[in-house]
């Protein structure tokens, strides 16, 4: 093993790692080409901050050249950097060089298209098995894990690629999954499977035979169920496993009689043997194997499809980048360009990424990996915290320099730091992250100006929605009386009262986010939050209704919607009157004030792209004004901006799938993709987001919610497992995918498998992993806070999440309640402000903020800025005032393409120099004719024509000068004219313009043709006069093909 030049830096939360990397980069640009630097970060925003600070730092220290060159360095997310590497080597990789990233929304569709054969082939079997495993039963919120098996196939493929597994690896994974899954089940029934069925069938029949005349309410569902089961079995259908499980739980009331009670009991007895049913084993085994088979086949098809088209998803970018790094020739070329690598947030690397970083480390002079094992929270996104931790330790063990630890917080107040050390210490130590290396050593913050301790506990009372209403009220009150919550303003470098923008509320689920956001908006508090439902907001609906009607005038529903949106009375029934009218279409159009504008827009729809049309509608003055009158405008504009973005994404997804982009397609895409509403980036809004989303960020005040959430191991979905000891130098070794199907649909408890899975060794590991990840996530949450942490738990129920900190001592961290006001973490206690929060069951009317809008201004009809001579028309007619026959018609044999002939002759006139040797002139003219493919004309004939023209013009202006192809520009009024004059004669009295026109017509048509060009020449004349303040007194049309020179002039003034 060669010693790699890697140094690792463990940087605790807020300990200034970016400053550290920026400093390193400033040193690096002194000793190497700045372009050689590679810096990977976790998000685009982090990359942006890093490059901005690095370059600003260089500019500030006068290293402008290095700063400029840093633009050529590679700063970005792991994906973008890998994508760049793959793009540069696409042809070496034998792929299409397009190297396009598939938009996140497009993956599912693309997969379906690419993998259709594999899906089609395995669908019959998987559908059949999925049916008996209850996959098609209606889903309830509780069993979200169960998904369409196609999604599982996709996830298997994703995991396979993220863990470097090929078809053989999937086969191995199938074996391991089957083996470990079957081990969860009790030994199979020794007899025949049919016997178990028979016993159950008989029990069902028996129970149905002893129904009392009047069935109790308790008994009804059970009997109903039995009936259905019996009918199905009479039809010869197989009983599904969820049904087996349900039958093991049937019951009735006492008053239904002993007979039925006994009957149902024997049903239960017979049904509860499902875990040992041989067919359960074979069904599950069959399902696992088939789905892995399908995945293996689909994997090849999907990869091939993308490779043909040069498409990549995120994992492809990484996997292919690793291919580049592992290929000697490609790696060598890459090695010429990269010399120094920085990896930020190393703890969240996937095995594939670790392999990439390691391979890069072999290629470059030095690598720095910065991270914090305590903040590894992306297990669900293929990150492997155990492996990253092993890598950290491994590097530290082999490195010559000691591992650096950044342990001073520049972020949080002392109380927070102390609490974190006390609360998380034991759990982290148990995880192999000893306090000696991982506790904060202190903080650079001072306590000056803070009257209150950094902690508060807000107990939320009542039903869920009321809890959130109470929380929202608490937040509003906190910054309404900001003086009670003084915070330190980083920018102003002084303390000041709390404001809305200082607050972040962290949530565990998107549903919670929505609740918090809704509760806050209800109180008129601005929130910055990403949430579902973009297409259900009234402003987006308004724009899309207009869009639909423009795209499809038969969509009268859209018109009716518009009629509603445009009435001032929210309950107006004008729309209904219009819908009811005899001429519905006309009436609806009349009821929609923008229908005329929309009709006009429809006329130009052929010139617009779908995204353009969205833009055009949003900024239609009446549309935007209508939306403005609804108040809270900034938030609405955020949504509309997202709609614009969606439209553009739609167009680019069409590009990658080769499909046309049409308005109808956009409408459809909006309905199927259900895009989200973006978060506002305004500084004066309360931020609401998930704990994961808070990674890398900080706020003066952080509210922690979801403290009652229980850690849940991921058991019945595909997960990557690793065998044996972890070797970070070979991160993809020994990896396999475990997939245990859940055959009981919504029957999630008391089926045997649930317990068995949880207590199995793999299940125990998964549970441990889950607990550890939850610990780290909580750490991330607490350490986001600069000045205050508010715990916001519900009053009822256990705070399961805090229990992950317990270790062997329950109640390690306890929140104060009642009169107590100390927060306890082990032996330490911390003062905290404790308040119960409750609101009454009244929904306050929401507060709407009106907006200031633009003044109505006169719309001016402005002509085009550029007056094009060729597009010039005038009402003043031109007349021919002089005709000169310069010579004969240009002779030609055959029929030349007139367009090319004209171009060629023009080119000869432009390039010919009468003062040159004839041979040279001739050669050039020949070459021009050749280039234009004109073989029907002799070069000499054209040159003769040139000479004749020259002679004539020299005769006209003996002392004048001729300029060929000379440019002219002028500002005429507030318009611009520009052009190139074929031939400009500059003489004592002014200018004359001569324009070559390759007109082949007969003599009687010359005049008409010549005067048609009058306006164009007239404009040149105008421009010349403006430009040179000299008159332009003559306009000529020269027709070289017919040998004529015609002078034209504007009629009213006679000859100019």
């Amino acid at each position, binding site marked *: 093993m060669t010693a790699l030049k890697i140094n690792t830096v463990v940087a605790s939360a807020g300990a200034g790692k970016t400053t550290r990397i920026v400093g390193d980069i400033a040193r690096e640009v002194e000793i190497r080409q700045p*372009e050689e630097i590679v810096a990977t970060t976790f998000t*685009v*925003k982090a990359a*942006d901050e890093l490059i*901005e600070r690095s*370059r600003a730092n260089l500019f500030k220290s006068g290293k402008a050249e290095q700063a400029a*060159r840093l*633009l*050529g360095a590679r700063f970005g997310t792991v994906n973008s950097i890998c994508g760049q590497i793959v793009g540069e080597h696409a042809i070496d990789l034998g792929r299409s060089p397009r190297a396009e990233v598939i938009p996140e929304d497009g993956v599912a*569709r693309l997969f379906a298209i690419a993998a259709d054969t594999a899906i089609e*082939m395995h669908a019959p079997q998987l*559908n059949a098995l999925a049916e008996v495993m209850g996959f098609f039963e*209606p889903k309830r919120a509780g069993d979200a894990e169960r998904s369409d098996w196609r999604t599982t196939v996709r996830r298997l493929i994703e995991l396979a690629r993220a863990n470097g597994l090929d078809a053989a690896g999937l086969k191995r994974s199938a074996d391991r999954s089957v083996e470990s899954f079957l081990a969860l089940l009790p030994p199979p029934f020794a007899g025949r499977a049919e016997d178990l069925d028979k016993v159950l069938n008989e029990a069902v029949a028996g129970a149905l035979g002893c129904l009392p005349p009047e069935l109790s309410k308790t008994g009804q569902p059970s009997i109903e169920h039995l009936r259905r089961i019996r009918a199905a079995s009479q*039809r010869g259908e197989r009983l599904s496993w969820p049904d087996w499980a349900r039958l093991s739980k049937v019951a009735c009331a006492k008053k239904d009689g002993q007979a039925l009670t006994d009957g149902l009991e024997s049903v239960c007895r017979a049904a509860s043997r499902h875990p040992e049913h041989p067919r359960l084993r074979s069904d599950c085994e069959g399902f696992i194997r088939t789905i892995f088979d399908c995945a293996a086949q689909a994997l090849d098809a999907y990869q091939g499809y993308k490779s043909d088209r040069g498409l990549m998803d995120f994992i492809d970018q990484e996997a292919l980048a690793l291919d580049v790094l592992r290929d000697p020739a490609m790696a060598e070329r890459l090695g010429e360009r990269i010399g120094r690598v920085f990896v930020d947030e190393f703890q969240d690397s996937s095995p594939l990424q670790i392999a990439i970083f390691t391979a890069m480390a072999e290629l470059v002079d030095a690598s720095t990996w910065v991270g914090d094992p305590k903040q590894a929270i992306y297990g669900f996104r293929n990150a492997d915290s155990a492996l990253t931790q092993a890598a950290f330790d491994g590097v530290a063990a082999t490195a010559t320099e000691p591992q650096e630890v950044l342990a001073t917080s520049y972020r949080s107040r002392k109380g927070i730091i102390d609490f974190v050390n006390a609360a998380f210490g034991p759990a982290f130590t148990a995880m192999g992250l000893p306090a000696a290396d991982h506790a904060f050593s202190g903080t650079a913050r001072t306590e000056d100006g803070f009257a209150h301790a950094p902690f508060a506990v807000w107990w939320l009372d009542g039903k869920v929605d009321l809890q959130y209403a109470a929380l929202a009220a608490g937040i509003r009150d906190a910054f309404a009386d900001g003086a009670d919550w003084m915070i330190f303003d980083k*920018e102003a470098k002084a303390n000041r009262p709390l404001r809305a923008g200082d607050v972040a509320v962290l949530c565990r689920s998107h549903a919670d986010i929505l609740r918090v956001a809704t509760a806050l*908006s209800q109180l008129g508090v601005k929130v910055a939050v990403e949430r579902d439902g973009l297409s259900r*907001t009234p402003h987006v609906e308004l724009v899309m209704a207009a869009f639909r009607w423009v795209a499809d005038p*038969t*969509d009268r529903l859209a018109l009716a919607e518009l009629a509603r*949106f445009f009435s001032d009375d929210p*309950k107006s029934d004008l729309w209904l009157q219009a*819908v009811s009218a005899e001429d519905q279409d006309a009436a609806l159009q009349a009821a929609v004030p923008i229908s005329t504008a929309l009709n006009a827009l429809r006329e130009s*729809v*052929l*010139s*617009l*792209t*779908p995204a353009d049309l969205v*833009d055009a509608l949003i900024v239609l003055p009446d549309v935007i*004004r209508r939306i403005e009158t*609804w*108040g*809270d*405008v900034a938030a609405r504009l955020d949504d*509309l*901006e997202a709609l614009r*973005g969606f*439209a553009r994404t739609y*167009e680019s997804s069409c590009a990658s799938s080769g499909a*046309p982009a*049409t308005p109808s397609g956009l409408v459809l895409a909006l309905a199927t993709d259900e895009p989200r*509403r973006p978060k506002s*980036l305004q500084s004066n809004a309360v931020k609401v987001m998930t704990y994961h989303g808070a990674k890398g960020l900080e706020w003066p005040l952080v509210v922690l919610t979801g403290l009652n959430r229980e850690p849940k191991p991921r058991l019945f979905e595909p997960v990557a497992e690793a065998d044996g000891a972890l070797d970070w130098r070979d991160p993809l070794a020994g990896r396999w995918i475990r997939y245990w199907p859940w055959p009981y649909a919504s029957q999630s408890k008391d089926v045997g498998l649930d317990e068995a899975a949880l207590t199995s060794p793999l299940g125990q590991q998964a549970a441990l992993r889950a607990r550890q990840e939850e610990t780290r996530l909580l750490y991330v949450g607490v350490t986001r806070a600069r000045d205050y942490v508010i715990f916001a738990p519900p009053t009822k129920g256990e705070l399961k999440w805090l229990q992950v900190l317990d270790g062997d001592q329950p109640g390690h961290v306890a929140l104060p309640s009642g009169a107590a006001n100390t927060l306890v973490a082990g032996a330490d206690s911390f003062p905290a402000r404790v308040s119960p929060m409750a609101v009454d069951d009244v929904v306050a009317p929401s507060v709407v903020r*009106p*907006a200031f809008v633009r003044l109505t201004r006169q*719309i*001016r009809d*402005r002509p085009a800025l550029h007056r094009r001579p060729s597009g010039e028309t005038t009402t003043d007619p031109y007349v021919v005032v002089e005709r000169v026959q310069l010579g004969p018609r240009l002779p030609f044999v055959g029929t030349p393409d007139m367009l090319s002939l004209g*171009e060629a002759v023009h080119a000869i006139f*432009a390039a010919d*120099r009468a003062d040159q040797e004839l041979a040279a002139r001739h050669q050039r*003219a020949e070459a021009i004719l050749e280039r234009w*493919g004109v073989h029907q004309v002799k070069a000499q004939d054209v040159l003769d024509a040139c000479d004749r023209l020259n002679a004539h013009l020299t005769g006209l202006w003996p002392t004048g000068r001729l300029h*060929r*192809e*000379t*440019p002219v520009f002028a*500002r005429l*009024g507030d318009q611009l004219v*520009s052009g190139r004059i074929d031939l400009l004669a500059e003489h004592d009295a002014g200018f004359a313009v001569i324009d070559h026109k390759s007109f082949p017509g007969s003599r009687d048509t010359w005049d008409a043709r010549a005067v048609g060009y009058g306006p164009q020449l007239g404009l040149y004349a105008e421009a010349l006069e403006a430009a040179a303040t000299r008159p332009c007194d003559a306009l000529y049309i020269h027709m070289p093909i017919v040998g004529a020179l015609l002078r034209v002039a504007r009629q009213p003034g006679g000859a100019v």
Partner: protein
Amino acid sequence: MDLIFGLACDGRAYPDFPGLGAGVVHAAVVGPTGLIDVLEVQLGLTGPRGAEAVRIAAYAAKLRAALPVSVNPFYAPSFARDPWATAKALLAWRDELIAAGWGGGEIGSPRIDDLARAEAQAPPLPPGAPDRLRAVSADLADRPSLSIRSITLVEPRDLLTPPNRRLIDQVEACGVEIQAASPPVADSGNDLHRVQAFLRSGETEPLQGDGAFMTVEADTALMAAEALAEWLAAGSEEDLAGTVVLSADGDTALLDRALQARGLPALGQSAASPWRGALQVLPLAFAASWAPFNAKALLDLLLLPRPPIERRAAGKLARALAREPGMGSPSWTRAWAELEANLAERFADHPSAEAEIAKRQTRWREWTTGGLYSRTQGMPADAARRIAARVGQWAVETDAGQSDPLLLTVAGAASALVKAIDVLGQDPLPALLVERMIEQVLAEGAQNPEHIATAGGLRCVKHPAAIWGPVDRLVWWDFKGPGERVPTTPWSLAEQAALATAGCALEPASSTASRISWSYANAVHQAKDRAVLIRPALAGGEETVSHPLAHQLHPVTQEAGLKVRWSAERLLDDAAHDLSGRRLTREIAAIVTPPQARAHWTLPATAIAKLAGRKESATSFERLADCQMRWMLLDVLRLSRGRFAEIPGPDQLLGNLAHEIANQVLRPGPVADAEDVRRQVDAVFDSLLGAIAAPLQQPEFAGELAAARTRVPAALAELARLLRAKGLEVVGTELDREAEFADGLSVLGRLDLVVRHPTEGLGVIDLKWTKSAKRRRTELAEGRALQLATYGAIADPGAATPAPGAYYLLNQRRLIGPVGAIVSDEEVEAARSLADTWNDLMGTWRLWRDLAAKGAALGTGLPEASDHFPEGLGIIPGQEPCQYCELTSLCRVTQEAN
């Protein structure tokens, strides 16, 4: 002639032209292309220009020809996968090498020699920019006299790209005077000048916040446009002159609409996009020609504002296609028959009627039922040419001599495609290749012809180096990153060395970076009075990143903080604002509440009138029973949802398909044996699939279709078995029945399957394709099986009592009906018999209709609706009627809070 030459000065530059006068002659501002143009004209080197697509096609042909004469050329695997994109990428490499001085021959470096071998093959490559440069350069070597007096360089000479630097050297050798542009005069006094001084020297002097230098931050591009438009509108018309907007993004459509709404001139930068409506005709025409048939593509074509076939014919075919998407469905055939009849009528008295009719029909058929080709095997080159030619013809005809630039672009693209197909010389053409070629021909220059700059003093440039002289007021629009990229060269150090030896010098990345940095600073340096930099935080929902110039300015702006930072959203909060020397005034918008949900509506007399003479159907009853408003709007007032919304979704298509198959295999009379039925289903499955449910053939429905292939035959076989077991005979399928009842109730229905029992008479079976049996079971159990009740009631208008009915759930293969019915297999204990259900339904209908006749309509999905229910409703509306309703947006029942 005197030229100003700048690398970014092709296209719009500022000032408009050299000199300070109202115009200029013998002088121009040119970029690299413009300079080559001038030289070509003077040297007599002009020649025809080909579309880039034709160049790529030619290069692809060269690469293909070089395959056999090379040993494992490096590009072979990529070329095999995606010949077009590979040719395009390699052509770009080749062009760069040629521009840098490569002669096109072998130099002893394997990858470059692979390209050299391609270079030597036929067909000839139409000249591109580097070829033209090479030709000009060759001519200049003889030092011809040029009619150019001087060239003033915008960029410092050492920052020019090597090819341009060489060209300038050559031109200089011909006696042309080369000058450096005089640098803008450094002023001092305000923030802008302080910033300029900082950019020049790196020395910071604290900014004062005098407004001469401002960054405007907006949450969204929309708000950014609002802020800029307000700022411009706050100045006078005269102030527009000397104001330059720098818009690197290249498209100012959004901003221009905001400007025009205030009477300001439009900037008129339009991006070339292949997605403009007219251009889609080309990809759509092809999309409709691949198998499996893409009904939506054809529908899109037919519904274009100017469809490729007569609008009326297009409309008719579109309607048929939306209803039964496929080729050869009954609706489709009917539509054609009607069209033919119309034609016959129209040309009845025409002397050459036959020819006229045939001409139209051929054309319509070509567009709508041309051949379908396999995507992987490809379509014959000739077929592709024909499609392209047809599109070209459409464009020319639609244009009708108006010279609409966009339509001419379509015609040009179509003809470029034909040419590229010719040059490429490949036959057949796989779908991927065709799509790539189409994209290429469309990508070239399709800007919005209606989006132009309008008159006034305001100017717009695309590139910071396109500003070559002083600007009074600079507005940097869309001041966001990442800015111009420094490209990485594909060549290794060894290859670069070999190239250098061969006289081909590539530009090092550091020079590119310096030039880019220079251009950013240049724009700021050229500003005289003030500079406003506008950055949206979100652009299209994505967070933006900071501009490289912002990195550079960071040391000064960071320090100045809010003094030079202004948030556009403030416009929403106040009536007056001071921004960069101007006062922006706003007015408050009166608050209007957005439309609200409302349960109770008053119907106008015109609506009531439409109740007369109605015929109800099973579907309209279902709607009525759930929500009177929905029935009123969709059934009585016939509010249309538009064509696209009509295309059935996959589940419905599966249902339609199963129905039609049943219709074909269950013939009247005794029921065939199950196996027999299964065979028959298999025999008709595919043809019916293509005829009425073509969208299911799209690859993304492979899973559903695979399921249907096994389920539909099994379902109908099982149905046959059940019918036989029950001794039932088929009376007919898809039977239309009509019946009159008391109170003027008239009912019309199409019955899926009517059967007869030798002793018990008629029975009705309704076929359903559903994911779960639950809904229909519950309906029966609760006595809400309205469809069955309706069908039973009209099955035999002569009968005294309704016929018994059952649902056959195809997906689940279950025949469920009320206990004791002859058609029931799985019996459900019903709370209300079908006959009672029917009676109650009639009563319910009467109550709702009477309510409507009195002028009231109820949206029952809304909470307060139940207060207004008529007394004695036999059938109470369901729990959540809005869940599957298409009118929720109109009713405003689901509305996201802001």
